């Protein structure tokens, strides 16, 4: 009897020991996981913190100290108003409001035109029967893989022969908008959504005497709303982030916010040295970044579905 109890406690002891090892193992594993994640999270966050930190530092601080400080010594929110009003002779003396106006205008027309064209083409390819449909679809699929950089040289020649390059009129807008108005990827995205709408709806509508065009706007578009919202958001983001093409073709007065972001922001009070005001630069990056973050917070679902299907942003 005593022996049996002895044996049992012995077993318990061994079991406890095993459990202990397992628990420490688990603890160590968790420690490793959490420290790894914390370090990586820190790395991800630091640039954002740094952007805000420098953007609130005074000009005196960024120019006349040996080392940058980790917190603004003199909290200077006026950087933001100064950067809004900043203009340089090299960039045609225009300020942020003009760049923003250009961006909004270009975004409006590219979004409107691009979405409309995507809807029309996607509808024709998904719903209508006509000769050459499969051929067109195959050609579109094949060209979807082609990098846009392949086209810029010829497109530049085309828009410059149309007289749009560096035009001091609406031509600059056209040069920025027209070449990228139709997106094959957006057509493809929408066609896939339209394909999922059952054929029976179409036949029922036909029986009721509904025209194709009416069917598209009354039935298909409302049903594909989420894909259309995704396209609209991708378009807006694309315009907000567009840089090189518009910077090459547009006249100074017709460029977009990214051009403003890349402007020099040199010290105006002290033109002789032309030192770059990094606090202004960072205030500008905050102004460009915040709308994107807001868009992401409110339309996360749409943005993610759009980006994950294309593998590219914007």
């Amino acid at each position, binding site marked *: 009897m005593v022996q049996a109890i002895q044996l049992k406690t012995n077993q318990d002891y061994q079991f406890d020991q095993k459990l202990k090892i397992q628990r420490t193992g688990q603890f160590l594993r*968790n420690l490793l*996981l959490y420290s*790894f*994640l914390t370090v990586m*999270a820190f*790395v*991800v*966050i630091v*640039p*954002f913190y*740094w*952007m805000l930190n420098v953007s609130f530092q005074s000009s005196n601080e960024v*120019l006349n100290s*040996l*080392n*940058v400080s980790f917190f603004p010594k003199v909290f200077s929110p006026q950087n933001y108003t100064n950067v809004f009003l900043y203009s340089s002779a090299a960039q045609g003396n225009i300020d942020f409001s003009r760049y923003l106006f250009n961006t909004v205008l270009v975004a409006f027309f590219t979004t409107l035109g691009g979405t409309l*064209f995507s809807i*029309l*083409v996607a509808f*024709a390819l998904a719903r*209508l029967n*006509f*000769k050459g*449909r499969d051929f067109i679809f195959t050609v*579109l699929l094949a*060209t979807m893989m082609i*990098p846009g*950089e*392949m*086209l*810029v*040289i*010829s*497109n*530049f020649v*085309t828009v*410059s022969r149309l007289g749009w390059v560096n035009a001091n009129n609406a031509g600059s807008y056209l040069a920025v908008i027209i070449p990228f*108005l*139709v997106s*094959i990827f957006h057509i493809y995205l929408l066609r896939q959504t339209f394909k999922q709408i059952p054929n029976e709806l179409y036949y029922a509508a036909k029986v009721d005497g509904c025209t194709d065009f009416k069917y598209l706007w009354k039935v298909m578009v409302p049903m594909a709303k989420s894909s259309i919202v995704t396209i609209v958001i991708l378009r807006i*983001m694309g315009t*907000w*982030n567009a840089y*090189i093409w518009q*910077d*090459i073709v547009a006249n100074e007065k017709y460029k977009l916010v990214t051009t403003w*972001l*890349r*402007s020099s922001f040199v010290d105006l009070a002290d033109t002789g040295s032309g*030192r770059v005001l*990094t606090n202004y630069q960072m205030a500008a990056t905050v102004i*460009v*970044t915040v709308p*994107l973050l807001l*868009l*992401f917070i409110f339309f996360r679902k749409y943005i*993610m579905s759009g980006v*994950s299907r294309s*593998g590219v*942003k914007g």
Partner: protein
Amino acid sequence: MLDHKRDLKAWLYLILPLFLLTIFTFYPLIKTFLISLFSEYNALTDDFGRYFDFYAYTAIFNDRFFTNALTNTLVIVFVSVPVSTVLALLIAVSLNSIKPLQKIFQTIFFIPYVTNALAIGMVFNVMFSHPLVGGVAAEGLINTLFQTAIDWVGPTATVERWRTVVLIYTIWSALPFKILVFIGGLQNISKQYYDAAKIDAAPKWKVMTRITIPLLSPIISYILITSFIGSFKAYESVLSVVGTVGRSLDRNRWTAVAYVYDKIGISGLDINNVSYYSRGAAAAVVLFFIIMIFTFLNLYISKKTVHY
């Protein structure tokens, strides 16, 4: 008759968008090939010239700045893509295996998901900044932190240094999208496999190499293909981190795409009678073929190794 009318209606939907696509996508695609082959192409008159040859290609491969641009591009592709993919995979697996704080970590990792490549690149430029003359401006974060005075991104930065910063930035910016896709993939793996492994008392690393990675392989190959293609087109990231103002970027820091864009707007011929546009077009064609080869290679390899 009815067929004819039906076709006509369908073309009404297509005519305008297809017209634009023809002018700005199909036509330039063929034209770029032609410009690259007619080495005396004149952009101002849009005249192809008399010479149909490969001079533009020999010109760019003899151009130090083009081969250098290709090297820069390949360094970005072959370092940043594997490193960011492995890091993202590790982060995704770690995120997936913790319970407390998971949501907070996830939110932090998704923050850079939609950012402006130029804007955050400029932040990296400021973080690694260094005044050319001491005391003219403050040292950046990295130099302050490590008590150094190294030029990382400025005009006197060495190749290794500026490339390091560009790589850090490209890896950093590639993480969120990859983490997100991997997390989605991990959550789609059936719990059954892990339960079976638990019963067999399989060690953690074996679960990772025998269950998680094989079942995730279609997603890994998708990520690899898209990010290889994306990094071959790197330009804005390099421009914003190691460029100066506007579009000005040191010629030694060009990527292949930067080389193409640089040739836009330079009319006329170089000393070897090759037009700059032909050079740019040839560079674009080379880039196009590299991307195509990689895409097909990736597809081929993934067909052989991906486990469904």
